[in-house]
């Protein structure tokens, strides 16, 4: 089993860095951020320059101003805003690892199996650190086998970051203060009073004694840091197991290059899917552009597929929507959901395979991709006499009908929305003599009926319908119905369809 690797990133001064990056005028000047805390205006963050001159978190901004003449006091943003910023940074960091989680003051990567893509762990950490420093953020990193130890070492370990092999966490955290175990402030204060300045002081004491004095949390945190207890991280974006990425040496701008990239990605993805006897139902292509914009294109299939040619032909229909702009650096292909797809039994005879043929579902996929959703319909019978309810629209090609098509009455071939017609019906419950439809008088020569269809009271309330199948002088056959009972003073006749 692969040993887990975690990277913890601590933004040592996220707030001040952000303000310096976004307001270049602040660079090199002492400034503090202030926000009301417990009904009192307090300093929530201070720039490096201000900290050197004596400002610290938690003091009143006026005190700081009296100490530093050139100090600028800036209103802090709400906490939720900073959390959103961290979330955004976490999303951006998915380029380094598929599983990225946020911590109160930093990020956590599950970097298992990621580092070799950057030629080793040292280069991996160095790349991340350099990238953040370039953007103007100071970070401290640690790469360890457990989440707890990674957090401890990023916050209390060496400044330049450190890499600890899995299994050597204990030795690495021995010299750190108890606060490195992510304990509540009252617990650390108590430890300080009792003279426990280092974790190594605690290790010697038996677990039961520690639990009695400092509570269960300490034991859990210690176990988590040493890897004897599992800790769960919640990635900002759940990693998709079927994912392929392709980084371009140079940003791609031409259609041919994009096509080749998509084909390469599809070949690898489909190869993996077919080995595992799986097929994808939907796949998203994400193109990371040089200017930071992400273009995503999604295609769906009506049944699981791992046919690269077919999937590529679907992407081909959507290629126009990919605007390369200044160029695309990274392509990412994510397949979700993925379903079981057992190999088709090939038929030796009979070319047409009906509804189950792959060619048909591929055709429907192409139609859906080209024209949008909701144009493809298939109908199955339902056990209702009410014509509108007697068929059900289904999307699936595999769904079998549960009942037979009702052939006890003749049904019209074309069904309209019921349209009012003016009829002459002198005899109750007899077919009408004639009817006027769209300005033309149709004289009825033959008629069948009535067939009374009751409104299903458990679905909706309303009148029954008396259906008549009538034929006019030209030989055209219509379906007419009367809503409710015969009433000479009321126009309650409708045309509902045409018979063949």
């Amino acid at each position, binding site marked *: 089993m692969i040993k887990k690797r975690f990277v913890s990133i601590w933004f040592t001064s996220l707030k001040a860095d952000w303000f310096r990056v976004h307001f270049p005028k602040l660079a090199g000047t002492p400034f503090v951020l202030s926000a009301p805390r417990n009904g009192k205006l307090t300093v929530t963050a201070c720039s490096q320059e201000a900290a050197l001159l004596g400002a610290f978190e938690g003091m009143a901004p006026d005190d700081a101003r009296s100490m530093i003449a050139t100090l600028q006091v800036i209103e802090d943003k709400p906490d939720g805003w900073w959390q959103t910023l961290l979330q955004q940074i976490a999303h951006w960091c998915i380029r380094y690892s598929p599983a990225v989680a946020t911590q109160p003051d930093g990020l956590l990567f599950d970097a298992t199996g990621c580092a070799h893509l950057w030629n080793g762990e040292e280069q991996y950490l160095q790349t991340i650190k350099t990238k953040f420093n370039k953007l103007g953020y100071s970070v401290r990193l640690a790469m360890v086998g457990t989440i707890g130890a990674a957090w401890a070492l990023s916050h209390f370990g060496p400044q330049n970051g450190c890499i600890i092999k899995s299994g050597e966490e204990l030795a690495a955290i021995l010299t750190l203060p108890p606060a490195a175990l992510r304990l509540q402030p009252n617990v650390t204060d108590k430890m300080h009073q009792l003279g426990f300045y280092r974790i190594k002081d605690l290790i010697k004491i038996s677990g039961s004694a520690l639990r009695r004095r400092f509570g269960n949390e300490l034991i859990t945190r210690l176990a988590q840091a040493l890897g004897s207890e599992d800790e769960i991280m919640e990635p900002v974006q759940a990693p998709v197991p079927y994912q392929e990425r392709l980084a371009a040496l140079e940003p791609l701008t031409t259609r041919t290059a994009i096509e080749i990239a998509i084909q390469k990605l599809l070949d690898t993805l489909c190869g993996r899917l077919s080995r595992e006897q799986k097929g994808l139902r939907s796949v998203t292509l994400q193109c990371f552009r040089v200017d930071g914009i992400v273009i995503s294109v999604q295609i769906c299939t009506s049944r699981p597929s791992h046919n690269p040619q077919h999937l590529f032909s679907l992407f081909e229909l959507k290629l126009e929507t990919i605007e390369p702009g200044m160029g695309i650096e990274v392509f990412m292909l994510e397949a979700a959901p993925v379903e079981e797809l057992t190999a088709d039994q090939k038929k030796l005879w009979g*070319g047409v395979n009906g509804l189950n043929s792959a060619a*048909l579902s591929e055709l429907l996929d192409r139609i859906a991709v080209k024209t949008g959703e909701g144009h493809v319909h298939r109908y199955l019978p339902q056990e209702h006499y009410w014509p509108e309810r007697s*068929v059900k629209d289904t999307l699936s090609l595999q769904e079998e009908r549960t009942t037979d098509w009702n052939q006890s009455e003749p049904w019209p*071939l074309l*069904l309209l929305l019921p349209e009012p017609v003016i009829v002459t019906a002198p005899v109750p419950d007899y077919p009408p003599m004639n009817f006027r439809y769209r300005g033309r008088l149709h004289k009825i020569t033959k008629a069948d009926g009535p067939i009374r269809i009751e409104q299903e009271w458990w679905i909706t309330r309303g009148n029954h319908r008396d259906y008549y199948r009538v034929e006019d002088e*030209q030989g055209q056959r219509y379906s007419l119905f009367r809503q409710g009972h015969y009433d000479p003073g009321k126009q309650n006749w409708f045309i509902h369809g045409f018979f063949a």
Partner: protein
Amino acid sequence: MFCPEKYNSSTNQTHVMLQTRKEIIKELRNEILFLQGGSHPIKDTAVNIELGPINAAFSDKSLPLGTIHEFLTSRPQTTAATGGFISAILSSIMPVNGAVLWIRQKPGVFPAGLASFGIDPDKIIFIYLRQPKQLLWCVEEALKSNALSAVVAELPGLDFNSSRRLQLAAANHSTTCFIQHPPVSTPTICGARWKITPLPSGHADDLPGVGFPRWNVELLKVRGGQTGVWQVEWDGKTLRNIAKQSFITAHEQKRAV
């Protein structure tokens, strides 16, 4: 091919000669058909299409498949009659597990109504597209897919170029296509052109009520065959000629008096 020497042979050979002549004519017909643009003009189709009297009109006594059949429709009433006639054809060309695509602009065909023409409506996939361009694209893709027994399309219009494209797609992929469209002024390319109009129904025993659907079937154009007009009735299983059955319905009697 044609050899004049054979005409000078003895009486014993006359029979053989006639046989050869028949064969020659058949071969020549095939050639003409090929020049007319059909790809598989005469092929041994396993399916026996129950078109009753109409079958005689075609060059090989059965409905040509793998080509475009145009149906001229103008009003919803004729659309329904045409739909019925097409469904009657579909019932014999749709194998047990075959699928059909029915492409039209908006919903309206009632699947339960198709069941009485001997087809399985749940084997039909309906596609509704508003834009004529998308409709044509869709019909062409469907013809090229090799996954369907037949394609039925109801188009708002058709021009020469698109009909040619569709005919080529149908011929190259041996897929039969039934296109309904209103009459257009421009010429179009097709294997056969039909016009179906409803006829008054009738019962043989002069019973009251509406009988089996009857249509006036006009074959306006057919490649390598004879055009004609038939009055047929769909009795639930086959198409029957009704022109010879001369009887007067009760209504007509009344009118005559």
